[in-house]
């Protein structure tokens, strides 16, 4: 293998370049990304990037690994059998091996109304545009109640905006933390001044060029100045069409991170859907910061043939969210949990919570309580060692 294309130049792309070098690859690496910035880290975009005038270099990731970076170039097509990608400037690049690291793009609402004043938050440019809109006294509508939605709510309150959260679920962050913890965190956000309209959906925006209000499906009309559409992301896989791949919700991989149906391609980061024997045999995408590095390491090892296929890949998902001046830190896949147990503390202060599926530990998270969280994290890893692969 002489020439590897890394498609995507964000965290997962960078970690792939580094991992290929760390696994001893001395050939040519070309990393291609549609954003104009060198690799940067996204977690601050919903936090300090919105609340401070943090300079660009605060989010850039330092690196030394050698590669040719083609930034601001979008890959528009790929012929896997022929080993070639097509770029938006009409040029093409040949490869012996391909690392798919194109990540996600933010979904948008498709309801009627003006587009002015409506934002998503995925890229550095998105964060810059939104930061400029969070002026004190403005009313910010956040559609969605995910971790990122709640982080933006917290940041907007810190900028003295009025904040309204509208989402279909009954509690914020429901899928991750469950109803009880979600309700407790909702109470904290409410005490911080956030107004919730849960169990509802926006059906229409008011205004001519710019949003001035929103109408919800329960008939409620609210005046708003700024909208943040935090309604999830879609995998960026259009460019892979025509290669007989399973592109349903990302790129389907086996447990070695090889793309199923190919001999020369691996996928990494948010875009990769792969089974993790730590939990079960169901392929899933894991949208966590640390997963970019974990999958990049394994994918590079598999692509170069230096990590044997029979060695199971069992990365422990690790996640965190900073909001309301505290950090929620966790491990595992809380979305798999059927029931949650309070291990220590109380939900209105510091706490550790364990999530179980059929009496098997699948997740732990908490605010503070580092020792309890850490102990359960070890338990999660140990249960994996004992489980059949």
């Amino acid at each position: 293998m002489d020439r590897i294309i890394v498609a995507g130049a964000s965290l997962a792309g960078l970690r792939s370049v580094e991992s290929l070098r760390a696994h001893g690859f001395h050939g040519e690496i070309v990393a291609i990304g549609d954003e104009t910035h060198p690799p940067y880290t996204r977690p601050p975009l919903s936090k300090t990037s919105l609340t401070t005038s943090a300079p660009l270099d605060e989010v850039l990731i330092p690196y030394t690994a050698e590669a040719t970076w083609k930034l601001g170039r979008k890959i528009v097509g790929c012929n896997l059998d022929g080993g070639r990608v097509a770029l938006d400037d009409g040029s093409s690049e040949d490869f012996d091996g391909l690392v798919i690291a194109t990540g996600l793009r933010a979904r948008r609402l498709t309801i009627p109304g003006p587009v002015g004043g409506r934002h998503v938050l995925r890229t550095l440019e998105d964060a810059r545009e939104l930061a400029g809109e969070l002026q004190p006294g403005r009313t910010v509508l956040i559609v969605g109640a995910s971790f990122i939605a709640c982080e933006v709510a917290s940041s907007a309150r810190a900028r003295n905006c009025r904040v309204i959260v509208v989402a279909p679920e009954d509690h914020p962050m429901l899928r991750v933390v469950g109803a009880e913890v979600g309700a407790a965190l909702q109470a904290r956000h409410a005490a911080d001044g956030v107004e919730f309209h849960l169990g509802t959906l926006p059906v229409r925006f008011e205004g001519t060029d710019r949003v001035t209000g929103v109408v919800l499906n329960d008939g409620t009309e609210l005046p708003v100045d700024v909208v943040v559409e935090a309604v999830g992301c879609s995998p960026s896989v259009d460019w892979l069409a025509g290669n007989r791949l399973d592109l349903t919700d990302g790129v389907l991989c086996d447990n070695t991170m090889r793309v199923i149906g190919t001999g020369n391609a691996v996928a990494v980061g948010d875009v990769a859907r792969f089974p993790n024997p730590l939990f079960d045999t169901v392929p899933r995408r894991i949208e966590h910061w640390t997963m970019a590095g974990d999958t990049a390491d394994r994918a590079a090892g598999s692509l170069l043939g230096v990590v044997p296929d029979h060695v199971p890949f069992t990365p422990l998902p690790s996640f965190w969210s900073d909001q309301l001046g505290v950090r929620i830190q966790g491990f595992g896949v809380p979305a798999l949990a059927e029931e949650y147990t309070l291990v220590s503390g109380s939900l209105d202060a510091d706490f550790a919570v364990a999530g179980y599926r059929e009496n098997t530990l699948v997740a732990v998270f908490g605010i503070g309580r580092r020792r309890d969280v850490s102990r359960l994290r070890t338990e999660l890893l140990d249960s994996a060692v004992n489980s059949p692969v």
Partner: protein
Amino acid sequence: MKITVDMVKCEDHGQCVFAAPDVFDYNDDDTLVWDSEPADTQLAKVQHAAAVCPVSAITIES
């Protein structure tokens, strides 16, 4: 190998403690402590710790 942790950048994620527990730890006050000149046998783990630090606060000099 010499390790530096930029404690201005550090946000207390604790990922380094999981990646290289023989080098990084929390003391009884929940403050990060580390061996600034660990044995070379720890290199791979320390490199992993630097890579998983969400704020790139760890630098390694050989």
